[in-house]
């Protein structure tokens, strides 16, 4: 008994000692756990709170509302409209098959469209939105709304989308928008930032150039989502900003007339304010309807546009490179005067052709013009006269003057990425580009705007404007921008050596339009309010053979692709001029019969519109 009790005491001592050790150990472990809790929940709380928010909050961006384009008078030329769309969220549909076939019937979807929808459905998660139809007509939209009672999960949605109310009228200025592709996203940071499926971005024209101003900012919806990405509740809706609205310098009425004049023809018309450089109208024909591209163009329509022999996709005003033909003559004459090669009394005898350096150069008038002075040579567009002065002048001096007046160089800098430089040749250029020496014969034909020389219609318009304003440098523009208040340092600096020379050229151009024997005499307007001065041009597309010269065919007898381009440059009114224009009609035959009559119609409208334009300006100042 004593033994056992002493053993009990020992056992008790042992177990109590060990309990004490265990207790201390437990204490330290507890301290460890509490400090771990403290570390996670107090010290690192911010970090984990952020991570938890990242887990549960997800943003959905909605397509931003794109800025509009207005013309000079505030008419919307590229705006937004409410597109009626049909969305389905598959998981909210009890019987998807039934609903989708019902929709197919109601919307009269074709089999290929229907297949496309089914394919899209497979690609998305069941709680994501399936867009069944992008742009429904009001009839179909209201039909769907009437049938909504048995279309569970179908949502008629009104979505904001691009719309061009003037269809093809402005296509070559503002371009068009379409679904953003990978390239767009990669190349523009702002598109990447604002991207949402279905975002439309500018593909060409001003829509593309001003993408960053037009795009606006997304509406953002913040949702709480669960671990599987399903939306649980909306936390926030952040309204985005509409893109900036851009005001253009163009006049819709004149633009529409330009469209009308060039209907069924290939060519270009542009009209410019000779003092401000504002482009009043700029049209390249044929054009196409940009609305076709907004929701993706159908294959058929695309093939029609692409395969049109008149090349609607080509912006002829900016991209078309034409020999200026006789429209270069004012510059040739001016260059000769400026360089002191000739004076107004210089006379040449035209016999219809002239032999130079073993080559025969023909004047357009077989019988010849007889003795011609500078003024008459311009008026009647005598080629022989200009062969002679070009020979005396030399191509280098000619190219210098031509370049000074805006030929051979992009007019809008980088505003339109498609714009072409054109080409004003000189001896140095030929040596560098072709590795051959300049031939004197080439100078001769450059004198009448043929040969290597290539200009775009917008360059011809700028050249005319700068002659019309008395020979001062202007910078053409098409978008009214805050940046315009800072004028370049050489803005309105004189381009001439002697202002009298400009007057001589202006006078000669007046003669060409308003005096008997002038090449565009038949298109003149006698009323001094509308009276304009101009110069015709006919640019050969190919070299005329001797045989063809003998045949002397009428334009209509020549195959279309071989007909000459018809050109016309003009400015008006002659007294106190304000506007300049250039017209190119591809394969139009003859400048005086095809292009000049268009100028007559244009000037009538341009000058009538002038006062309205001015009044808008005054109002603008009053508002300030």
């Amino acid at each position, binding site marked *: 008994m004593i033994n056992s009790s002493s*053993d*009990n005491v*020992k*056992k*008790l001592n*042992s*177990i*109590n000692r*060990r*309990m004490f050790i*265990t*207790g201390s150990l*437990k204490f330290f*472990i*507890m301290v*460890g*756990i*509490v400090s*771990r*809790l*403290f570390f*996670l*929940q*107090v010290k*690192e*709380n911010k*970090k*984990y*709170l952020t*991570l*938890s928010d990242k*887990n*549960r909050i997800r943003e959905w961006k909605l397509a931003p509302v794109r800025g509009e384009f207005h013309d000079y008078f505030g008419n919307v030329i590229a705006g937004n409209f409410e597109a009626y769309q049909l969305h389905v969220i598959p998981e909210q549909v009890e019987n998807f098959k039934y609903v989708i076939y019902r929709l197919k019937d109601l919307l009269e979807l074709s089999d290929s469209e229907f297949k496309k929808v089914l394919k899209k459905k497979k690609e998305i998660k069941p709680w994501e939105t399936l867009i069944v139809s992008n742009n429904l007509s009001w009839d179909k939209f209201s039909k769907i709304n009437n049938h909504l009672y048995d279309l569970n999960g179908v949502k008629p949605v009104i979505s904001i989308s691009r719309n061009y109310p003037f269809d093809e009228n402005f296509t070559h200025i503002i371009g068009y928008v379409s679904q953003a592709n990978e390239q767009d996203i990669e190349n523009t940071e702002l598109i990447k930032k604002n991207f949402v499926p279905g975002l439309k971005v500018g593909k060409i024209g001003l829509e593309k150039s001003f993408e960053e101003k037009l795009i606006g900012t997304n509406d953002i919806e913040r949702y*709480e*989502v*669960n*671990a*599987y990405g399903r939306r*649980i509740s909306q936390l926030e809706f952040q309204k985005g900003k509409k893109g900036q609205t851009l005001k253009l310098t163009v006049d819709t009425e004149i633009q529409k007339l330009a469209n009308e004049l060039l209907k069924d023809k290939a060519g270009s018309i542009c009209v410019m304010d000779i003092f401000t450089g504002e482009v009043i109208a700029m049209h390249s024909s044929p054009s196409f309807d940009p609305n076709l591209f907004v929701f993706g163009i159908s294959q058929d329509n695309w093939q029609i546009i692409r395969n049109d022999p008149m090349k609607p996709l080509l912006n002829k005003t900016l991209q078309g490179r034409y020999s200026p033909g006789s429209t270069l003559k004012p510059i040739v004459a001016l260059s000769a005067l400026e360089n002191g090669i000739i004076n107004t009394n210089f006379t040449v005898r035209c016999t219809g052709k002239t032999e130079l350096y073993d080559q025969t150069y023909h004047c357009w008038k077989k019988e010849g013009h007889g003795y011609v002075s500078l003024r008459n040579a311009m008026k009647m567009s005598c080629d022989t006269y200009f062969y002679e002065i070009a020979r005396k002048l030399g191509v280098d001096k000619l190219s210098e003057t031509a370049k000074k007046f805006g030929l051979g160089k992009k007019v809008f800098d980088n505003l339109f990425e498609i714009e072409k430089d054109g080409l004003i040749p000189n001896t140095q250029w030929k040596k560098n580009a072709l590795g051959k020496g300049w031939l004197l014969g080439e100078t001769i034909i450059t004198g009448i705007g043929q040969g290597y020389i290539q200009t775009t219609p917008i360059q011809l318009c700028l050249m005319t404007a700068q002659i019309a304003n008395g020979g001062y440098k202007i910078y053409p523009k098409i978008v009214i921008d805050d940046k315009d208040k800072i004028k370049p340092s050489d803005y309105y600096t004189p381009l001439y050596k002697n202002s009298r020379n400009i007057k001589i050229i202006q006078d000669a151009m007046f003669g060409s339009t308003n005096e008997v024997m002038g090449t565009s005499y038949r298109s003149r307007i006698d009323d001094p309010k509308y009276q304009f001065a101009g110069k015709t041009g006919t640019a050969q597309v190919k070299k005329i053979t001797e045989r063809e010269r003998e045949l002397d065919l009428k334009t209509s007898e020549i195959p279309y692709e071989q007909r000459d381009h018809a050109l016309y440059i003009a400015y008006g009114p002659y007294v106190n001029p304000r506007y300049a224009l250039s017209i190119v009609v591809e394969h139009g035959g003859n400048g005086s019969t095809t292009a000049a009559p268009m100028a007559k119609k244009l000037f009538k409208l341009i000058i009538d519109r002038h006062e309205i334009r001015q009044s808008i300006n005054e109002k603008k100042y009053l508002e300030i």
Partner: protein
Amino acid sequence: MYQHTRLTNNNFGFFQKFRNFDYILLICILLLGFISLATMYSTDGGKILFHTKSHFIKLMFFTMMMLFISFINIKFWFSIGYLSYIVVVSLLVWTYFFGITSSGSKRWMDLYFINLQPSELMKIFIILCLAKYFHRMKLENVNSVYTILTSLIIILLPMGLVIVQPDLGTSVLIAVSGIAVLWFAGINHKYFIYTMLGFVISLPFVIAFLKPYQKLRVLTFLNPDKDPLGAGYQIIQSKIAVGSGGIFGKGFLKGTQSYLEFLPEKHTDFIFTLFSEEFGFVGSVVLLVIYIIIIYRIIAIGANSRSYFAKLFCYGFGAAIFVFITINMSMVLGLLPIVGSPLPIMSYGGSSMLATMIGFGIVMSARVHSQQLIA
């Protein structure tokens, strides 16, 4: 004479037994039950759904059972020490052959009204068995080779049966329960130190024998960010939930990690994470304090017990509960690799609660019959 009167006093009446109850322990257990119910309600998304209902019923039933157990004389529990061990071992064997397979392991036996996990019961009954084994042993015999071998077999047999299920976590916890009793029984501390050293040295070899998913868990524990959506997902999300709770928590029913289903196994092993997210550091510490009070009361009851068996059981059970809690918490706090180990009472799961409540019941019985001597 004195002893005699004490003995007569111990001729317990029903109300005497009631008076002998440890009310602090009882209140703490009920409080814990209440907290676990509230947390379960939160895992159901603030609605009384399956888990909440089921947990409530189990809680009621097993609390009644605990009270019933505490009225049974501690002598009875001593007497069934071996028998209960043998019964549970046979249940494990039965499970091995006829158990229900779920998520790759055969842990459950189908009892028609409840699916029982015998391995959970083993956590308690191994303590009971070993406490009985060492009760009468003289201290000088404790360190004999025969004793050590016998006790090792008692531990290793159920461990082996659980490992083959396979369920590494539970088998480790069974081992811990057993070893705790050995430690209190007075086995030379050298053996523990040697075993520990041996374990550390053999660890690389053990890892080599682990199943691929177990190896992955160890690797994930070492570097959870390696595969954040795969194996590391649980631990990363768990840490985010706890960490984002902050000092005062996100508020009851406002734990975004849990109700948006980022938390894995939130009803069972990760229940503390959810609690911690909603109630923050303060709530977590309060919960820990409740657990500490429970453990303290268990040890106090052991200290006040006259019988060596009761002492051993209480100390052993106290240590085991402590280890269960710390392993579960360390696991969800990213201090230990993920092993399946529920948080006593808090976690959803009948077998675990049954085992814990039996343990509490025996402890309470030891308290009620604290003056009971066992021959």
